[in-house]
């Protein structure tokens, strides 16, 4: 079991830059400098976004001397996939309601 994350995964991925960071990390682990080189924002801003991802448990951090390295923890994204699965059921239900709507209309 993983420790409970401090912040919500859904909040963590609500920002486009953070999603792009996860994209980058899905290829390989990277240093802060490496990550920052892909973004047109200040280093502190990049670090703040990484902090949110870290707090949500989506990435792990390791120190290499003075540099910090980040790796993806994809398992933490499971709630999102679960959520999308629920959406799938949501539409099953509503398309059934559409069918019902149509058949009731016909009989009137």
């Amino acid at each position, binding site marked *: *079991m*993983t420790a409970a*994350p401090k912040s*919500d*995964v*859904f909040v963590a*991925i*609500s920002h486009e830059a953070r*999603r792009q960071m*996860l*994209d980058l990390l*899905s290829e390989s682990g990277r240093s802060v400098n490496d990550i920052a080189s892909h973004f047109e924002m200040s280093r502190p801003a990049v670090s703040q976004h990484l902090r949110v991802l870290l707090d949500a448990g989506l990435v792990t951090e390791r120190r290499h001397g003075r540099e910090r390295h980040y790796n993806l923890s*994809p*398992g*933490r*994204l*499971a*709630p*999102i*996939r*679960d*959520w*999308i699965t*629920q*959406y*799938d*059921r*949501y*539409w*099953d*239900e*509503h*398309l059934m*309601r*559409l*069918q*019902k*709507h*149509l058949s009731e*209309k*016909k009989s009137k």
Partner: protein
Amino acid sequence: MSHTIKKQMNLPQSRERVWEAIANREALADWMHPNDFEPRVGHRFTFQVPGNPAVGFAGLTVNCEVLECAPPRLLVFSWSAGGPVANTRVSFRLEPEGDGTRLVFEHSGFDLSQPFGDQAFKGADYGWSKMLNQLSSLLTARSTQSQ
């Protein structure tokens, strides 16, 4: 590749009839949720998903914009409900099928799962999520109502 929910169903009604059920405010309120839909590209509207205090679901607003509207063939609107469902895309394509209609439904643009292959999720411990619970509550509320 983004995650897409795809569904197909054959309906005995004509395309025109099915179109009336998907591109009409009152009809959408009947099988979806209260809304202020208008069948016109660029129209912004909302679905008001009612809450259910019994299960702690506060309700939510889904923000939409009509992206394509070609009666009786194609209706597309954006769908933003917060969380990972920002600016996703819901489409209804109606194809003639004998005397009836084939409805091809898609909800696409869940691009948050995009960079992560299915294998990335395997063996994961499934966490609790507020929104997941909300939607489950919503489904429960719905099925209770329809009984």
